[in-house]
């Protein structure tokens, strides 16, 4: 199997009825030589910082997000492979409480590599991928989440320039 087949990255368009699917992820990372699969599923919570949440809208810079997903998978494959299969999918659009925002799966011969690769990839998705979350509250208000600055969080980024606060 080629490395290209072994790594799959996707964006699921909620407006078209698609959401990241754990079953698809598990099927993608399965192989007869693999004994361990680790999966992470991120879902929309009904409460954040004490406010009742009724839904979340995700905005993505699709092209760069897919590049970040792919690089995260390649780095995990270099660290925990070469016998490894990885899957990442993230939702775009508006999701309700309990719906799946992100799925990451890693299949490997043994469990330690699967857990570590899965964790490394979800951390990259959370901290490096160009994805923004707008929370919709029960009181009708909406707000973009405070996030994780990419300044300095990526080898490609320069430090934050001194600027107006």
């Amino acid at each position, binding site marked *: 199997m080629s490395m290209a087949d072994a790594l799959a990255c996707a964006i699921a368009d909620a407006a078209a009825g698609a959401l990241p699917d754990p079953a698809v992820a598990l099927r993608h990372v399965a192989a007869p030589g693999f004994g361990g699969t680790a999966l992470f599923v991120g879902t929309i919570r009904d409460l954040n910082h004490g406010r009742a949440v009724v839904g979340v809208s995700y*905005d993505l810079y699709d092209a760069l997000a897919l*590049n970040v997903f792919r690089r995260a998978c390649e780095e995990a494959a270099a660290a925990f492979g070469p016998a490894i299969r990885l899957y990442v999918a993230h939702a775009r659009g508006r999701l309700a409480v309990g719906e799946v925002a992100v799925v990451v799966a890693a299949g490997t011969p043994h469990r330690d590599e699967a857990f570590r690769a899965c964790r490394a990839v979800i951390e990259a998705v959370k901290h490096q991928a*160009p994805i923004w979350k707008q929370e919709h509250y029960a009181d009708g208000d909406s707000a973009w989440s405070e996030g994780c600055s990419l*300044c300095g969080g990526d080898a490609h980024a320069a430090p934050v320039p001194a600027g107006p*606060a």
Partner: protein
Amino acid sequence: MTATVSVRLFGAFRDLAPAAVVELPLPDDASVATLRAALEAHGRGHWPAFQPGLLAVSVFASAERVLREHEPVPRDGELAVLPPVSGG
């Protein structure tokens, strides 16, 4: 020489411009830092809801990667400004 670059807007910046894109005139040899200054000037001049503090913790990127502050602005392909991210 000066040419216009298009910068895509995401997250909280998306609300500032209906098309989620801003056109900025920029010298051909402009660095990313110069682009940042141009976007800040545009924001202060055109967008009442513009938050300079948010821009200060944002980065510029192409479709391939986050750009370094001192590198020249690439003139082929897309440009975007990325506020702090919150995926997953």
